[in-house]
């Protein structure tokens, strides 16, 4: 369909050139230099100190029904065990890059995602991952699906997502968060609370197809 391609591009050029409000000089300007003139007076960088940013983040997470557990690096395995036993879960999906120190030694069964086929991948009700960065203002967790974060299907099929968040991964604004995404062409998923819908009578209901529970384990 290369004729469709050139037809569309030609039509766009021809139509833009017909607009009396757009000068030829304007259309001929390098887009990259015109782009620089786009006004950006919105707040790209936050104004709060980090403690306040964290408080805001916790508040936003709770507001959208996420659960929070506070611990430290050494307490991760216990926190995982606690979150799972409270939810009556016993089989944990473990993406390839998860450090062994995060995993409980006993009490639950581990299933490591070594390119698992669909059926065994879908079976565990719980998955454990890290994250890349979090946005306090909107209560959003971002995954680049690198090492500690698993492939996309791994955080999608289980019903309960346990996410390890280090305090220094939390920033105030969305712009600050995107600046921390370094693998911009990797698959990226942003998560704000559990799966939800408001399609029926505009009532927000937790949980349709994605995980119905999100537990943030804060270090």
């Amino acid at each position, binding site marked *: 369909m290369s004729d469709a391609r050139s037809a569309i591009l030609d039509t766009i050029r021809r139509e833009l050139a017909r*607009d009396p409000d757009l000068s030829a000089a304007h259309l001929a300007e390098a887009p990259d230099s015109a782009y620089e003139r786009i006004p950006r007076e919105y707040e790209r960088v936050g104004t709060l100190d980090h403690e306040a940013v964290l408080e805001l983040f916790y508040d936003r997470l709770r507001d959208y029904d996420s659960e929070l557990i506070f611990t430290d690096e050494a307490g991760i395995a216990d926190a995982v065990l606690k979150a799972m036993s409270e939810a009556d879960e016993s089989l944990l999906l473990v993406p390839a890059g998860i450090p062994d120190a995060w995993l409980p030694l006993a009490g639950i069964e581990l299933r490591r995602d070594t390119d698992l086929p669909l059926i065994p991948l879908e079976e565990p009700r719980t998955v454990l991952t890290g994250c890349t960065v979090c946005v306090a203002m909107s209560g959003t967790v971002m995954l680049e*699906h690198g090492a500690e974060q698993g492939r996309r299907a791994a955080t999608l099929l289980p019903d309960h997502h346990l996410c390890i968040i280090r305090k220094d991964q939390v920033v105030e604004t969305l*712009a600050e968060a995107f600046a921390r995404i370094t693998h*911009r062409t990797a698959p*990226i998923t*942003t998560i704000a609370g559990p*799966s939800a819908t408001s*399609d*029926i009578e505009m009532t927000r209901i937790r949980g349709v197809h994605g995980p119905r529970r999100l537990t943030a384990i804060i270090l």
Partner: protein
Amino acid sequence: MSIRVGHTADKASFPILAHTILKDDQTRRNVRHATDVIRAKRALRVEEMPDWEQLRTSGHAIKTHTLEHLPYYLEVFEKNCIAAGGQVHWARDADEANAIAIKLIRAAAAKVEPEKTKPEVIKVKTMTSDEIGMNAALEREGIIPWETDLADMIVQMGKDEPSHIVVPALHKNRHQVRELFLENMGLTELGTEAADLAAAARMYLRKKFLEVEIGVSGANFAIAETGSVCVVESEGNGRMCVTMPKTLITLIGIEKVIPKFQDLEVFLQLLPRSATGERMNPYNSIWTGTTAGDGPQEFHVILLDNGRTRMLANTRERETLNCIRCGACLNACPVYRETGGHAYGSIYSGPIGAILSPQLNGMEHSRSLPYASSLCGACYEVCPVKINIPETLIHLRGRIVEADQKTLAGKLSQENLGMKMAAHLFEHPRQYEAAQRLARTGQGLFEKDGKLVNLPGMAAGWTQFRDLRALPDQTFREWWKKRKSKTEANA
């Protein structure tokens, strides 16, 4: 070229469709309730943003800039998408896009599930696919499309049409949805709470997500700089459709391209707050071409024109393409809130539909839509990318009148003759005064309690529903003249 917006070509005009809907109390109650709820939530979430106006300004500027350099950004997007393992197709119109999709689906199905006679695809909500009538086109070819967005599924099961661009089944309440689910999901028992219905949808679709090997999506944003695509959603069905299948086909209107990755920081603040009144929607998926070991290994983009280039030659019209489909203008519109979406005869309803549909379709199919507005300006106030919808409505009305005046029927129409006569009278004061005197004498036939009722001809359209005050016994000019001569006499 066959440009198509829903089934607009066969639809009656807005006043006729609206008339039927206005008699449907249930639909009106549902629409009123839903729009009330979203409006209140949006207001709350916009209120807490000190830089909302600055974000709107940037959103408008980014879109304006992109459209002015559209060929450049489309080519950059194409290059980067291909470099990342995607394949890019171009479609001038609906038929071309559907033909490409069908060919890709057939080829993918032959590869992954050759034993299946009827290939299946899972779809995540895409208005663009509704615009080109994709489901009907696929079904004609023996391909089964499964809508996976809860509201789209409700619309599909009910053989209905979307009535809102964000919440397409907003005209149905939960009892009506329950009936549909019972009928279509083979269930014997089902609760009436929204949560029961969502749980039923989860059970019903999970098997499809695991089994169907081909996905179809739309895109909220296509990022030129990286060749990435972004899909904004809430339920997780979007993540499923862009992650689980082996082949993914993404249909993207050419106006959806944005220059850079960092521009998402503007739109992903504007869109969720405007659309559903959330600080952030539960999920966004951003992906670039294909990724080894993660998600579809075959990825196709179809870049669609279908009438969009018709809006490029005029700055006022081009602004329509700024739209990020948040639906805030629908929820704010006093007309939409009475009629709901079906009165617009197009899948794009409300104020944005009233300017988008006629321009995509050509005026001949949607010429009543630019008049389906009181020009109150509420839509412009809430638009996150500052589309001046009222100005555009007036501009389009002007185009309709201009086109009519070129035809013989238009020249001889009551409206045109009336306007001509009015223009003449306004230029000739004596004749104007004579006409006033004549009207004052003539109006006696229609006057009742100082109001004119049941006027004949074109004026009937006005007096049928509205009060029109009768002309007073004395006009201002007459009073002024009398006053002047009196003052002079006194002097």
